[in-house]
C-alpha cells in the first residue's frame, strides 16, 4: 500500500514535469503566433486588437519572396544531391565488405557527430578562399556536408533488410545493371529514399549554423533571415518579426507533418543507434 503510494507520487511528479514542459512550449509558440496578429500588445494578457497587416509588411520589409525562393532552391538542390550521392554510397556500404570499410564509416559518422559550428568555420574559410563563400552554390555545398552522411546512415539498415536474392534472381533472368536498377531496386528503395529525403528537407530548412556561416546577402535562407531580423530587433516592429517567424514555422511544419507520416519521430534524432 505504502509503496504504491510513493510510486504513484513519483509517476505524478514525472507527468507534471512533462506537462509543464509541453505547456510552456505550446505557450511559447502561441505567443509568437498571437503577437504576429496583434495590433498593439503592451502590458496586457492579450493584444488590444487583431490584424493581418504585419504579414504584408513583413513580406515587403524582409523581401520574403526572394528569401523563400532562395530557401527552396537550396533545399531542393540539397535534397536531390544528397540523394544522388548518398543512396548509391549506402547501397555499396550495405552490400559489400572491403578493407577500410570501418574507416569509411567513421568518415560518414564524423560530420554528424561534430557540431556544425566547429567544422563550419574552417569549411567557410575554405569556401571563401575558393570564391564559393557567399554564393548559392557555397550554401548548397555546405548543407550537403551533414546531409549526405545522414542519407547514408538512414539508408544502410533499410538496404540491408532487402533480400539480396531478389537482385540475384533478376541477374539470373538476364537483367543488366541498368534494368536491375530501374525495375528491381528503384521500386523497393523508393519508400526508404522518400523518408530519408523528407528528413533531409526538414533538417535543411532549419539548418542555421552552416547557412549562416556561408551565406551572402543574396543567398540567405529563411532561418538566417529570421536570425538577422531578431538580431537587429528594435529597427522593425516586433509583430512583423513574429509574422516572419510564423511563416518560417509554417514552412517547416508542413514538411514535418508530411515526414511524420512516413517516419517515426525518434528517427529525426536517433541516427547514432542505427549507425552501429
Amino acid at each position, binding site marked *: 500500500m505504502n509503496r504504491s503510494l510513493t510510486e504513484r507520487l513519483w509517476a505524478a511528479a514525472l507527468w507534471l514535469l512533462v506537462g509543464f514542459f509541453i505547456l510552456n512550449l505550446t505557450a*511559447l509558440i502561441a505567443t509568437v503566433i498571437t503577437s504576429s496578429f496583434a495590433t498593439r500588445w503592451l502590458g496586457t*494578457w492579450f493584444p488590444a486588437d487583431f490584424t493581418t497587416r504585419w504579414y504584408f509588411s513583413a513580406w515587403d520589409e524582409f523581401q520574403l519572396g526572394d528569401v523563400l525562393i532562395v530557401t527552396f532552391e537550396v533545399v531542393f538542390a540539397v535534397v536531390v544531391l544528397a540523394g544522388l550521392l548518398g543512396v*548509391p554510397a549506402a547501397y*555499396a556500404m550495405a552490400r559489400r565488405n572491403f578493407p577500410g570499410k570501418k574507416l*569509411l564509416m567513421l568518415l560518414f559518422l564524423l560530420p554528424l557527430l561534430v557540431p556544425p559550428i566547429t567544422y563550419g568555420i574552417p569549411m567557410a*574559410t575554405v569556401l571563401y578562399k575558393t570564391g564559393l563563400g557567399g554564393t548559392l552554390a557555397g550554401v548548397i555545398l555546405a548543407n550537403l556536408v551533414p546531409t549526405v552522411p545522414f542519407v547514408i546512415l538512414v539508408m544502410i539498415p533499410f538496404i540491408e533488410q532487402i533480400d539480396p536474392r531478389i537482385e540475384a534472381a533478376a541477374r539470373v533472368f538476364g537483367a543488366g545493371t541498368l534494368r536491375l536498377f530501374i525495375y528491381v531496386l528503384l521500386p523497393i528503395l523508393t519508400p526508404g529514399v522518400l523518408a530519408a529525403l523528407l528528413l533531409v528537407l526538414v533538417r535543411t530548412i532549419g539548418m542555421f*549554423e552552416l547557412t549562416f556561416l556561408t551565406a551572402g546577402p543574396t543567398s540567405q535562407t529563411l532561418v538566417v533571415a529570421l536570425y538577422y531580423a531578431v538580431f537587429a530587433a528594435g529597427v522593425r516592429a516586433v509583430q512583423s518579426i513574429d509574422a516572419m517567424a510564423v511563416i518560417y514555422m509554417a514552412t517547416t511544419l508542413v514538411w514535418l507533418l508530411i515526414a511524420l507520416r512516413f517516419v517515426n519521430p525518434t528517427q529525426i534524432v536517433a541516427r547514432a543507434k542505427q549507425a*552501429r
Partner: protein
Amino acid sequence: MSTVASTVAPIRAAAPSLRLRLAATGIDGVTLLLLPAALFLIALFIYPFIYGFVLSFEPKQGGTLSNYQRFFSDSYFANTVATTMKIALPVTLLNLTLAIPIAFRVRLLRRQRLLTTFLVLPITLGTVLVAEGMLFYFGPQGWFNRTLMTLGLISHPVRLVHNYWGVLISLVITGFPFTFLLTLSYITGIDPSLEQAAATLGAKPAARFRHIFWPLLLPGLAITFCLSFVQAYSVFPSAVLVGEPAAATRVISIAAYQSAFEDYDYSMASAIAMIMAATQLIVVLAVFAGRALVYRGPVASGKG
C-alpha cells in the same frame, strides 16, 4: 562476389586478373558507388579541418604558436572556455537526469507517438525560432512572468532573457527533447523479458533499475551525454539572441565567429575552432574513461 572469383579463376590459368583479385576482396563496380560521397566529404569536411589546423599555425603576426598563446593569455578569449563549460555541463546533466526517469515512464506508454511528435517540434523549429519566441514569452511582460505574478509566486517579474538563464532555458527547450528521444530509443532497445525475469525473481523496481537497466543502459547514456554535451557546447544563436553575448554568455563559438567575420582573422578563427574541437574531445574522452571505471562489460546494449 568471392564465389565468382573462385570459380572463374582456375579456368584462366594461375594468375587471375587484377579485376578479379579486387573483386575477391570486395572491391568491384558496386563498391565504386562510394567514391562520389567519400570524395565529397574528404574535400569539404576532412580537407577544411586539416587546412584550418595548418592555418591556425600561420598567424597574421608572431610565431607559429602565437594564436594559441594569444588565446590562453588573453582572458577575453581564455574565459570563453570556462563560460561555455558553465553553460554546457549543467544543461547536459539536467537534460539527462530529467530524460532518464521520464523515458522509463514513457516506455510503458502505448501511445508514445503524440508525445514524441510534440517533442520533435523544438528540434525541427531550431534554436533561432525558440530564441525568438522566448524573448517575449519569458520577458517581463510575457505570459510566463504574468502567470507567476498572478499566482503570487513572485512580486516582480523575473529576468529570464538577456542573461545566463536565457541561454540555459533555450538549451533545455531544444536539448531536452533531443536527449529524451535518444535515451528513449536506447531504453526501448532493452529486451523487456530481462526486467520481467528479474521481477519474477522478486526484484523491486529500484533493484531492477540498479542491476538490470543501469549496466545495459550505461553505454547508450554515455553516447547520449556526449552528443548532448557537444551540441550544448557549440551553442551559438541563442547565446547571442537570448543571452548576454558581451559578458556572461560570451561562448567560444561567438569568439570564433567574431575572429572570422568581424576581424577577418581566419587564422585566429581556425585556432579557436581547433580549441573548440579539442575541448569537446577532452570531455568526450573523459566520459568514456569514466564509463570504463564504472562498468566493464559488453559495449552493446541488450538487443544483442
